[in-house]
Each structure stands twice: as structure tokens, then as C-alpha cells.
């Protein structure tokens, strides 16, 4: 380019070249700040929306905190997190269309599962074939992981764990209790109750009644009359928020003389306090409670998470929200370990994960016939008590090592 000399003084050319170089450098640094897209559907409407939205809040809190800290840092690059999400209407009909859309059109790098085991199974068919990693939260049913996947990773302790804690706690208090199971006829609760029934009998309890109800049930009079007639002293079961909260109310209104009531999912929601006295005494198997302290290897402490969550949403975190946050945290950790967002490498890092966070321990099964199943996480049993001012509070009552209060037995 010998013309330069003619038109421009040499020093200017030098300066311009330098400037250009700096600009390119800056730009490439800026490029390092590339976004990473995580896709998922939320049940904004439909039967699952209470539970699903709590999980969503967990995702949101994680994203905001990561981005505020400058994104996920791996191999010198940093990735800002952005979400692509749609409403699945609590219905699996469009789940595949939406997950395909997120993968192909929104170019999602990673995926979180929809809420509930049923929708997750449908989404998994799509994510698996594109080799996209999907962290499943709010989906405890285990069958999906036995179908031969490579890229599914379950954040929740699987279904058989749920009522085990409750039965263990019961065994310590009242080994002679007679037990009734009343549960939602849906993937998750069936997966929970089926092994729980066997476990109860194995523990020597007399199971006097067991019946499933349709997922959209609002009138439990008939089934509760049967529970009362069966003379059961303990009732275990439920399903999700909508049916569980109703069951809680109607048990109270009918003055069912039960010594212990354990319901799935519903009593863990911050909305449970709306039940007032009807909610007090009810137990819930929980993936996470703020009272259980764990020493996190990375991420926030339990107290920190609790505080940040309350500050952001002005509500108490549920285990659904903690699970949502933890899914992000574990993914972040794996990306950092893998040094990038290559799916195979991140999957490897997830397979190797055995970490303790505010959420507790997380480890995934790696055997092909159960790949991705959560094997590290353990559950606790929480029960609603009243504090001194008469306000309902949730306390951890089992295992004894983690307890923050004694199990109230009988309830009333």
C-alpha cells in the first residue's frame, strides 16, 4: 500500500493502525462476553402453575445473580445468561413444539425441564435427540431416566425417597400406626406412593386404605369419608399444590381424627399459610428447607439464598424455588469445569459432579440404565408449626440430625 505515504503522514497511519488493533482487541474481549441461552417452558396457566412458577422464580434469581457477577466464567470467557421460555399451559400437547423451537430458533444452549414428570418425559424425547443437556427440576419420577438417555440430569431426589422420610419419622414415634394412602393419580405421586406402600408394609405398618383420585379433584368428601371409615390414624399422599391444599382444608373442616398428615409438594409452597389453622400440623417431604445447613463448596450459603430470595420476591422460598436455583448453579459449575459450553464436555462434567451447595449434595447416576438419576441428594420431612406469636412456620422434624423442632404427634 504505497499510496499511504502520499496521502497521509506516516505517524497518522501508525496511530490509526494502533487504534484499529485496540478496537479489534476490545471487540474480541466484548465477544468473550457472549450470551448463553437456556430454554424451558413454564406452566404459566393450567393446573401446575403454582408449583411451576415457584421453580421459575428460582431460575430467575440465579440468572440475575450470575449476570450481576459478570456472567458464567469459563476458560477466560464470560457468558451472560439469558432465558428463552414459553407457556406450556400445563399440557404436554405443545411441549415438543416449544422445545424444538427453543433449540432451533432461540438457539438454546442448555435446557431446564418443564414442571412435572409428565411434561418432562415429553420434552426429553426432543432434547435427547438434539444432544441438548436438560437439567430436570420439579420432576422426581424416575422412569424417564431408565429409558436410555445421555443428557438428562435430575436435580430432585427421586420419587421413592419422598415418603420414606415420613415413614421413618412415623416409625420412631408410633410403630403401631395404621396408614392410609390417598394420592393424585398422576405420574409423580404414583411413582412416590407405589414404593412407599411397599416400604410401609416392610416397616410393619398396617396399610388399611389406599386410593388414587383424579388430578382435577376438588371435592374430597367421598374419599375422606372412606378414610374415616377405615379407621386409619395416619394419612399420607397428595400430589401437587391445587389438590393438596384442598385436601388439607377438607381434612380440617371434617375434623378427621388423624394423628399425622403428610402431603406431597403442596405444604411446601409459601401459599400454604393461606390455609391458616387448617395447614398447621401437616407434614411435607422436602428437597430443601432453610433450616438444614449445608457447607456449600460454591454458590451462596443457605442463609444468603434465603435472604436474597425474600428480598427479590417478598416471599419465602420453597424447595421448588431452591431446586430451580440449584439447577442453574450446578449447570454453571459444570460449564466452568468443562471450560466452555460444548455439550459433550459439560455432560462429562455433570457426570463427574459430586458437590455440596446450599441445596445439599448433588450427584448423578452414570450407569446407562439409570443415567442422570439423582443419587446424592437426600430429603427431609418438614412440618407446619405455630411460633410464639401464633404465626405458622415450617420446621424440619426429620432426620433427627437436621431437625429444627420435634415432630408434633398427634397433630391436634
Amino acid at each position, binding site marked *: 500500500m504505497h499510496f499511504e505515504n502520499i496521502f497521509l503522514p506516516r505517524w497518522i497511519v501508525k496511530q490509526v493502525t494502533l487504534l484499529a488493533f485496540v478496537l479489534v482487541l476490545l471487540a474480541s474481549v466484548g465477544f468473550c462476553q457472549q450470551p448463553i441461552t437456556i430454554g424451558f417452558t413454564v406452566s404459566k396457566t*393450567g393446573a401446575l402453575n403454582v408449583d411451576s412458577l415457584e421453580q421459575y422464580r428460582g431460575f430467575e434469581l440465579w440468572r440475575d445473580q450470575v449476570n450481576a457477577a459478570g456472567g458464567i466464567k469459563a476458560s477466560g470467557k464470560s457468558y451472560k445468561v439469558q432465558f428463552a421460555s414459553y407457556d406450556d399451559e400445563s399440557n404436554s400437547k405443545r411441549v415438543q413444539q416449544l422445545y424444538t423451537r427453543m433449540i432451533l430458533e432461540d438457539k438454546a444452549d442448555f435446557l431446564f425441564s418443564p414442571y412435572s414428570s409428565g411434561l418432562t418425559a415429553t420434552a426429553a424425547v426432543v432434547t435427547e435427540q438434539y444432544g441438548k443437556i436438560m437439567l430436570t427440576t420439579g420432576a422426581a419420577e424416575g422412569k424417564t431416566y431408565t429409558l436410555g438417555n445421555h443428557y438428562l440430569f435430575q436435580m430432585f431426589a427421586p420419587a421413592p425417597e419422598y415418603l420414606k422420610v415420613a415413614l421413618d419419622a412415623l416409625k420412631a414415634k408410633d410403630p403401631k400406626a395404621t396408614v392410609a394412602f390417598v394420592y393424585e393419580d398422576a405420574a409423580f405421586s404414583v411413582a412416590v406412593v407405589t414404593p412407599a406402600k411397599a416400604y410401609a408394609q416392610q416397616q410393619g405398618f398396617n396399610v388399611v386404605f389406599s386410593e388414587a383420585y383424579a388430578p382435577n379433584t376438588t371435592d374430597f368428601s367421598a374419599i375422606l*369419608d372412606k378414610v374415616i371409615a377405615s379407621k386409619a390414624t395416619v394419612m399420607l399422599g397428595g400430589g401437587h399444590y391445587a389438590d393438596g*391444599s384442598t385436601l388439607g382444608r377438607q381434612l380440617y373442616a371434617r375434623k378427621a381424627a388423624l394423628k399425622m398428615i403428610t402431603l406431597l409438594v403442596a405444604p411446601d409452597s409459601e401459599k400454604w399459610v393461606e390455609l391458616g389453622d387448617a395447614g398447621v400440623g401437616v407434614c411435607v417431604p422436602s428437597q430443601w428447607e432453610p433450616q438444614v445447613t449445608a457447607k456449600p463448596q460454591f454458590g451462596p450459603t443457605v442463609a444468603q439464598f434465603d435472604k436474597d430470595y425474600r428480598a427479590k420476591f417478598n416471599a419465602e422460598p420453597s424447595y421448588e424455588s431452591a431446586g430451580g436455583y440449584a439447577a442453574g448453579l450446578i449447570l454453571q459449575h459444570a460449564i466452568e469445569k468443562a471450560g466452555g459450553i460444548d455439550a459433550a464436555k459439560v455432560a462429562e462434567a455433570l457426570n463427574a459432579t459430586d458437590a455440596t451447595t446450599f441445596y445439599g449434595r448433588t450427584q448423578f447416576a452414570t450407569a446407562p440404565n439409570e443415567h442422570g438419576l439423582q443419587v446424592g441428594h437426600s430429603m427431609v420431612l418438614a412440618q407446619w408449626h405455630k411460633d410464639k406469636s401464633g404465626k405458622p412456620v415450617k420446621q424440619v422434624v426429620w432426620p433427627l440430625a437436621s431437625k429444627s423442632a420435634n415432630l408434633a404427634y398427634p397433630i391436634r
Partner: protein
Amino acid sequence: MSGILASMIDGLLVGSVYGLAAMGLSLIWGVMNVINLTHGAMIALGMFGMYLLFGLVTTNAYLLLLPVIAAGLVLGIVVYWMAVHWVIGRSELMSLLSTFAVNMMVIGIGTTLFSTSPYNVNFSLPGITIGAYTFTGNHIAAAVSAVVIALALQLFLYRTRPGKAIRAVADNREAAELMGISSTAVLTIAFGIGIALATASGALVSTMFPFTILSGGAYELKSFVVTVLAGLGKPAGALLAGVLLGLLEGALTPFIAVSWIPLIEFGLFVVVLVALPHGIFGRATA
């Protein structure tokens, strides 16, 4: 007290509310040959009407039935002029679709306003305890209210001029016109009353069970069953059929899993429809 008796009493209490809901559907069918597919949405609006009113004025929830009914009447008149009037006398498909369209819109707006989360009306009356079984005050009050409203409707239809005009139009619209009865006015009022009954039953349900904006659908289906058992277009029979259906549910549940109940109900529905199209109390008139 035995389980089966308790179960039957529960069935009876809830059944009368089913009956009330079905009366609305039946009245509209009887007067204008329209299967009102907004029924479920209107029941849901009744639930939310009660919820909102109870949030404004905390009083005995059952007193709030009156404003809910009044609002339902107005709403029904609006819906009639929006979607029903223009399809009267056209093929059934048209009225089915136009009412379903309104149903979609109401559910859509309701979902935006209330999402699909469950709501409760936090009002409870003391119940009656017999042995191990407790019948909640709300169930009893709802059943009594349903019967009172049903009787009031019956009195209106059989003892007042406008009520008789409605029956006349239902019986023979053209002849009613010849008597100087404005059938348009009567259809408007009858539709309004039908919707008012739906909202009233929704309001009663809301005092017993939690509800979402989608809850009306299940009660709409129940109303279909009850209406068919009573014989289409016979509002008086609907209450009785509702109570019978409740009793049947109550009598069956101790012996079979509750999940089989819908099969029995809808099986019965189809059989009655095919074998006794005039309902179980109906006689075959030409």
C-alpha cells in the same frame, strides 16, 4: 353413624348444588333450544364474583348470593345479545359454537386476570358432627341455599305473569307471540335467569371447594348429566335429578374407587339419553 350414610348425606348436599347448576342449563335449553356452552365459564364467574365480593365486604357469604345473582342476570342479558339472539332458530351447531366462542373469551380474560391458580373463599360456618363424621356448615348452607333458589324459581315460573310467559314461550314460541308476548324479551330474560342460576351455583361451590377459572368445566359436564337425567328442558326435574345423582355417588363410593364414579355417571348419561330421551321422570310426549 355408618360410612355409607355419611357418604350419602355428603352426596345429597353437593347434589343439590349440581341440581341448581343444571337448572340454568335446562331452563335455557327448554326455552330456546340452545345448549349453552358458556355454562361452565359462567359458573366460574360466579365463583370469582363471590370471591371478589367477599373480599370487599366480609359478611356472611350466603348474603352475597343476591348481588351475584343480580350480576349474573345482567351478564346473561349481555351474553344473549352478544352471541345468542342472532343464532336463535338457526342450526344447533351455530348456537353451540357461538356460546363456545363466548366461553373461550371469558376463560381467556379470566386467565389473564386470575391466572389458573386456585382461589378460596375463606368463610366457614360451624358444622354438625355425628360420630366420627362432620358435615361442614358450608355444605349444609350451600345445599339449603340451592333448594331455596330452586323453589324461588319454581314459584316464579308457576305463579307470576313473566314466569308464565317464559313457560309459554318454551312451550310454543309462535303461539306466545300471538298472545302478545314478546318472545325476544322473554328469551332475553330466560337466558339471563339461566346464567344467574349458573353464577349462583358457582358462588355456592366457591364456599365449599377451591376453584380456578377453569373449574366451571367440570360442573358444566355434571350439569349435562343432571339435565339429561331430568329430561332436557325440565328445570324442575333438574334439582331432583341433581340430588339423586349426588345420592348415587354417595351410595357407590364406599364400595368402589372414586375414580370409577365418572365412568358410571357418564355411562348412565349415555344410556338414559339413548333409552329414555325424556329423562328418568319424563314421559314420552309427542
